[in-house]
C-alpha cells in the first residue's frame, strides 16, 4: 500500500487507520460484523470494494447455472423416462452409456472437445479459441468480424423491448450454448440415472398396481403417478448438487472466459488477492445454503406429506 520508501510514522498511521494494531480477535470481530452488514472487505489489489466486485459478476454466473440446469432437466427427464419404460432395449443401453460417460468426463476437457468439434472441425459459428492468448482461452465469435461482444441476458431482453431486435438475444444464445452444455452434461447424466432408477423403483410399488387395476391407462400411470413421485428425490439431489454446479461453473467459466464469479475467483487466486477470494468463497457458500433452504421449501409443494416445522 505504501511502497518501499514508507517512513515508520506513516506505517504506524496506516496500521492504526486499518485497525491492524488491534488484537486478532477484534479484527476478526470487525470482519464478521462487516460480513453481517454485507461488507465483504476491500481488495487492495484492485482498489475496490469486494462486495461490488462480487455483485457485478453474479448475473453471468446465474445465467450460466440456470441455462445448464434447464438443459439438464429438459434432456435428462425424457431420457430417463425412455430408459426406464423401455428397459433393456438399445435406447436404455444408449442412455446408460451416455450417463456413465457424462458423470465421468471432467467438464474442462468436455468444453475443449466441444469447441474442437463445433468451432474448429465443423466451423459452426460458436465460441472458438483464440490461439496463443496466453493463460486464458478467449471466446470470440467467428461471425463477428469486429471481435468479441459480450451480451448479458438482461441487456439482450432490453434491446428486444427497445428496438424489437432479436439480434442480441440470438448472440446471447450463441454465446451461452456451449458453456451451458459443458456445465450441464454432468447434471444431465446424473438426472438421467436418477430418473431411470427412481421410476423403476416406483413402478414396483403397490400403488402403481392399484392404479393399473383401477383401469388407468399406462401412460397416465407413468406420468401422473410414477414420474411425479420420482421427482422428489431428484429435486433433493439437484439441491445438494448445487455445490457441484458452483464448482463446475468455476471451471467452465475459466475454459470459456465467461465473465462470472468463478473466473473472478480463479484470477483472484492467481494474483493472491485474499480479500476478494475470501469474499467470493463466502458468497458461494451462502448461496449454496440458501438454495438448499429453497429446495426444502419445494418439498412441501411436491410432497404434501412433508411440512416445514
Amino acid at each position, binding site marked *: 500500500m505504501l511502497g518501499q520508501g514508507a517512513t515508520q510514522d506513516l506505517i504506524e498511521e496506516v496500521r492504526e487507520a486499518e485497525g491492524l494494531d488491534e488484537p486478532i480477535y477484534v479484527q476478526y470481530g470487525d470482519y464478521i460484523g462487516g460480513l453481517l452488514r454485507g461488507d465483504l472487505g476491500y481488495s487492495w489489489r484492485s482498489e475496490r470494494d469486494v462486495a461490488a466486485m462480487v455483485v457485478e459478476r453474479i448475473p453471468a454466473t446465474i445465467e450460466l447455472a440456470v441455462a445448464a440446469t434447464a438443459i439438464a432437466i429438459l434432456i435428462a427427464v425424457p431420457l430417463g423416462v425412455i430408459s426406464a419404460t423401455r428397459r433393456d432395449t438399445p435406447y436404455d443401453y444408449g442412455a446408460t452409456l451416455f450417463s*456413465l*460417460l457424462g*458423470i*465421468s*468426463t*471432467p467438464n*474442462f*476437457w468436455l468444453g*475443449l*472437445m466441444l*469447441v*474442437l468439434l463445433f468451432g*474448429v472441425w465443423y466451423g459452426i459459428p460458436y465460441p*472458438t*479459441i483464440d*490461439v*496463443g*492468448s*496466453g493463460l486464458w*482461452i478467449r471466446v470470440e465469435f467467428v461471425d463477428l468480424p469486429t471481435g468479441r461482444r459480450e451480451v448479458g441476458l438482461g441487456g439482450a431482453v432490453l434491446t428486444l423491448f427497445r428496438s424489437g431486435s432479436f439480434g442480441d438475444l440470438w448472440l446471447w444464445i450463441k454465446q451461452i450454448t456451449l458453456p451451458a452444455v459443458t456445465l450441464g452434461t*454432468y447434471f444431465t447424466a*446424473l438426472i438421467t440415472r*436418477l430418473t431411470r432408477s427412481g421410476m423403476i423403483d416406483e413402478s414396483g410399488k403397490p400403488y402403481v398396481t392399484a392404479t393399473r387395476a383401477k383401469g388407468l391407462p399406462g401412460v397416465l400411470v407413468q406420468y401422473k403417478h410414477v414420474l411425479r413421485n420420482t421427482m422428489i428425490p431428484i429435486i433433493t*439431489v439437484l439441491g*445438494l*448438487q448445487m*455445490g*457441484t*454446479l*458452483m*464448482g*463446475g461453473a*468455476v*471451471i467452465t467459466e*475459466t*475454459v470459456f472466459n465467461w465473465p462470472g464469479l468463478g473466473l473472478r*475467483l*480463479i484470477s483472484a*487466486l*492467481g494474483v*493472491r488477492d*485474499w480479500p476478494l*477470494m*475470501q469474499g467470493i*468463497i463466502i458468497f*458461494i*457458500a*451462502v448461496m*449454496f*445454503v440458501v438454495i438448499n433452504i429453497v429446495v426444502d421449501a419445494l418439498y412441501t409443494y411436491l410432497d404434501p406429506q412433508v411440512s416445514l416445522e
Partner: protein
Amino acid sequence: MISDRVRSNLKRTFRESLLPKLGVTLLTVIVFVALFAPVLATHDPTRTGNFHENGGPYPPPGFDYTTTVSQDGEITEVTVTSTEKHLLGTNTVGQDVYSRALYGARVSLLVSLFGVSLALLLGVPFGLVAGYYGGRIDDGLMRLADIMLAFPALVLALALIGVFGSQPVRVPDPIVAAGLADGMPESIPIPGSVTVVVALVTWVWFARVARGEALSIRNEEYVKAARSFGTADWRILLKHVLPNSFTPIIVLATIQMAIIILIEASLAYLGFSGTTLSWGYEIETGQDVLRTRPWIAMVPGIGIVLAIVSVNLIGDWLRDALDPNIEGSERGA
C-alpha cells in the same frame, strides 16, 4: 468383515452384469499401466525437444499438419508427418505424449489412493467416536460437517490450495531403482499439497457415514453384551463397531476416489497442482494450441475419462450389491 451374504451378493451381481466386469478390467489395466509406466513408456516423459525436422511437434497418425518454415529468406509450406517413434505424437515442448499419459495415470492414482486413505484415517475414527458416544462430541462434529458441506468441494479445495501453495513431493521410482527401466526419471513429482487438500475436502463424508453406522450399531445386542462384560470402549469400537460399518465405508471410498481424480485433474488444469506430469496440467498446455495440435489436450483427457469410468463402474457394482441407500453416493465434487 465381509459377511457371506454380502460376498455372494457381490459375486452374483458381478456374474450377471457386464458393467462390473468392464470396470474391474479397465481399472486393472490402468493400475498395471501406472505401476509399470517406466517399462511401458518409450521416452523419458520429462525430456523435451522431440521435434520434427521441420520444427513442429510430431503429430499422432491421422493428425498430419502443415506449417511454414523460412529458409534462406524464403517461406515455404511443409507437411509435418507422424512417426513410429512417437506413437501419440509430442507436445508443444517436444515431450512424448504417450509416455506422459502413462505417467499421468501414476500421478492420478497415487493422489486418489493417498487422498482417500488420508480421508479415511481422518473421517472414520472421528465419525465412529462421535456416533458411539453421542452428546457434545457428536454435536461438535455435525456442526463442523455442516460448515464443511456449505462449501462446494472444488471451491474449498481451491481456497486451501491458495493457502497452502502447491508443494510437489518427489517420490522415488522403485521400478527404475531396480534397474528395470534405464533412462527413465529416478523419481517423479507427486502433488503433495493437493493430496492433503483432497483429503481435507472429502473426509467429512467418511465421518458422516461412520457416525451414522456407529449410531445404529451402538444399540445392537452384541455391543450391549460386550459392554456388560466390562469391555473397554476403544475395544468395542475397534472389534465391533468398525468391522460392522465397513461395507458402506468401502462403497463411499470408491465413489470418493472418482471425485478425487476429478478434483486433482481440475486443480492441475487450473495450474495449482505443482507437478507437470498430471493429466490436467497436460490438457491446460494443450488448450492454447487446440486448433492446430488437438491431440495434446485430447490424449490426457481420454486417460481421465477411462480412470473415472472404471472407478464409477466398480462403485456402482459395490453399491448395488452392498447398500442401495448409502449417503453421499450421488453427491459430487
